[in-house]
């Protein structure tokens, strides 16, 4: 019965609206007071039923909820024969509840979209060798599954056979589908664009990367900040306090109408819902833009950050050496490249790999003899030519004259932070390559945006030598640069910054940087999706996408502002309402309820603005 009534709350809302219309038309148009009176009484009683039931349930577990205030107020109004007020108040309360649910659903939509991407079924290989569609809960680690075009990958697993392109945007934020073949890892929640693969389940359900992300987001939106906990404690005492105030006013003034009005006006709805709404909308916006913000405490601290400390390798830079500059001294560049590639393919030195990657497809030559010269490079016989690849020392050893122009080039390359690779063909210099860990594209613009957002100090800390770090700092316009730092040195340096009263965020790739991530008020992990760093940090930039950092900071600022606005609106409205009860004549129960419900909608709508937040450029 109880549940039936509560489930019919929506229907009751509309019936009570209809009854109100009947009552007012018969009162004003037909002057039929009897019909009006009974329509109002019916509206009050059926409208109060679900409210009273919820109030009763709350009281049973010793919670004085808003429902209790409203129920007492409505019963009071009925007793003193003010049917109009009782009917309007119940209707407004129910209608407000309806609107609240509608708008709340909107706010939560961003996160629900994410959870709805969770796979629900899988094609599982049964004992008889057939693939049968089963619910996701019936899939265990080790099961063999088939995934076809258009289907979702149901688990984290390894491809056993077949080929496919998979859209991994849900995990990595990367819109370009990734190619998968035997032995590749696939992730739950990603969608197969084309192809068919058989996979073996490595992790299922909540243990998958996708499951973890959802769990983190879900917990983040309910993780409470200090301010929220305060409001929680506050509202626990606030509602009984309003009841007491009503009782006292009644005892003193003997004016039951005034006492009841106080109960209605004192409802703390906007206060209770204002902060969570901003929080959910902000986190939802982040989830859509590849930024995971872990809860409102994080948002609060992040919004106050004035110093951002970066790890260099893998954060500001690509994290692997690449050929940045080249000069070819020979006339036939194509031939030189062919010889160079053939030699470098023999080596697994990082610089050699960078060169092979840079050269791409080249005509292959037969390499007959290779000598690796320690601390120098490599010398080989390629199609009858003697090819030497290495540093300046190797060239001297090989008696290769460098010439004035080459020496100038080498000097310039080194100043740009390059490692030098020289190539000599049959004793004469043919090519110079500068290899360095290049800065990620767009980082400079992103840092400029951070500065615009009011971040005063941009610091880079690196294990690399001071010269290289200084170069990066100069190129990017950072305010401080420190090299030769071990992970614990970085953490200590952050502590020093904090001692100066700074709010520090640390951005790192999360493996060797975990002490700093933990030390900084806000640890921002460049999460490639599979990282454990997702769990230890406060903010995760999905797919290690640095360009999301300015959006993340801007969003945190906007969300924190939004929360403050909501608190001010909520408190302001209650104060104004209560003051006007005592000091004005126009205030009554219905207006109070209207303003009260209105303020709830205002804070929800205000929070929803965050869903559309975009960083202004």
């Amino acid at each position, binding site marked *: 019965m109880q549940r039936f009534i509560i489930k019919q709350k929506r229907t009751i809302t509309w019936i009570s609206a209809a009854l109100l219309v009947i009552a007012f038309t018969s009162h004003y148009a037909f002057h039929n007071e009897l019909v009006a009176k009974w329509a109002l009484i019916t509206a009050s009683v059926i409208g109060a039923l679900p409210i009273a039931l919820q109030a009763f349930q709350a009281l049973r*577990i010793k919670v004085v909820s*808003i429902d209790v205030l409203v129920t007492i107020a409505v019963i009071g109004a009925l007793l003193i024969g003010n049917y109009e007020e009782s009917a309007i108040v119940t209707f407004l309360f129910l209608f407000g509840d309806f609107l609240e649910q509608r708008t709340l659903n909107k706010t939560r939509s961003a996160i629900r979209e994410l959870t709805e991407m969770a796979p629900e079924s899988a094609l599982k290989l049964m004992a008889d060798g057939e693939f049968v569609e089963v619910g996701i809960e019936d899939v265990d680690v080790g099961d063999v599954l088939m995934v076809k075009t258009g289907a979702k990958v149901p688990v984290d697993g390894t491809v056993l056979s077949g080929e496919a392109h998979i859209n991994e945007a849900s995990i990595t934020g990367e819109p370009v589908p990734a190619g998968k073949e035997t032995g590749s890892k696939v992730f739950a929640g990603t969608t197969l664009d084309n192809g068919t693969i058989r996979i073996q389940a490595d992790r299922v359900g909540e243990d998958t990367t996708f499951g973890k992300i959802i769990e983190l987001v879900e*917990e983040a939106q309910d993780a409470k900040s200090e301010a929220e906990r305060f409001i*929680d404690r506050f509202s626990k005492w606030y509602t009984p306090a309003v009841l007491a105030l009503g009782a006292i006013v009644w005892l003193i003034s003997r004016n039951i109408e005034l006492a009841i009005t106080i109960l209605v006006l004192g409802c703390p709805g906007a206060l*209770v819902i204002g902060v969570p709404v901003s929080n959910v909308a902000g986190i939802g916006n982040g989830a859509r833009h590849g930024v995971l913000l872990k809860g409102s405490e994080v948002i609060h601290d992040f919004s106050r950050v004035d110093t951002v400390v970066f790890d260099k390798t893998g954060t500001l830079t690509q994290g692997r050496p690449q050929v940045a500059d080249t000069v070819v001294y020979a006339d036939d560049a194509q031939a030189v490249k062919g010889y160079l590639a053939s030699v470098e393919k023999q080596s697994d030195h990082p610089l050699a790999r960078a060169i092979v990657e840079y050269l791409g497809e080249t005509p292959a030559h037969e390499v007959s003899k290779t000598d690796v010269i320690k601390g120098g490079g490599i010398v080989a016989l390629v199609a009858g030519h003697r090819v030497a690849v290495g540093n300046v020392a190797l060239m001297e050893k090989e008696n290769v004259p460098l010439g004035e122009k080459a020496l100038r080039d080498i000097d310039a390359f080194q100043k740009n932070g390059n490692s030098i690779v020289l190539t000599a063909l049959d004793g004469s210099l043919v090519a110079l390559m500068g290899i360095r860990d290049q800065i990620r594209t767009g980082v400079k613009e992103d840092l400029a945006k951070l500065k615009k957002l009011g971040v005063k100090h941009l610091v880079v800390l690196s294990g690399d030598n001071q010269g290289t770090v200084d170069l990066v700092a100069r190129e990017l316009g950072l305010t401080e640069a420190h090299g030769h730092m071990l992970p614990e040195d970085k953490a200590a340096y952050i502590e020093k910054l904090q001692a100066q009263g700074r709010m520090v965020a640390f951005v790192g790739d999360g493996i060797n940087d975990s002490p700093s991530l933990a030390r900084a008020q806000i640890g921002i992990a460049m999460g490639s999706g599979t990282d454990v760093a997702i769990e230890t940090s406060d903010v995760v930039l999905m797919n290690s996408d640095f360009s999301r950092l300015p959006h993340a900071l801007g969003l945190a600022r906007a969300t924190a502002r939004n929360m403050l606005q909501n608190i001010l609106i909520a408190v302001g409205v209650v104060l104004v309402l209560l003051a006007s009860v005592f000091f004005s004549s126009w205030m009554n129960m219905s207006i109070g309820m209207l303003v009260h419900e209105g303020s709830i909608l205002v804070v929800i709508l205000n929070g929803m603005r965050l869903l559309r937040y975009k960083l202004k450029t």
Partner: protein
Amino acid sequence: MKKATLQLETLTCPSCATKIEKAVGSLPGVNKDSLSVLFNASKVKVDFDESKLTVEDIQKSITTLGYEVLKTQVKDR
């Protein structure tokens, strides 16, 4: 110890969450520290001692408050 995750109908008022928290938290055999009512996700997560109560008892304590339980998952701790 088992860990239960219950998906509820959409919760609309924060006081609903408080109510559910109190109701589930007062059941014997429930680990109060592990109890979390996720208001926005409309989920309840809790560890419980299966020798003292069943997951149905937890469901019942929520449904009697007037909230529907849509899905229940139980896992070993």
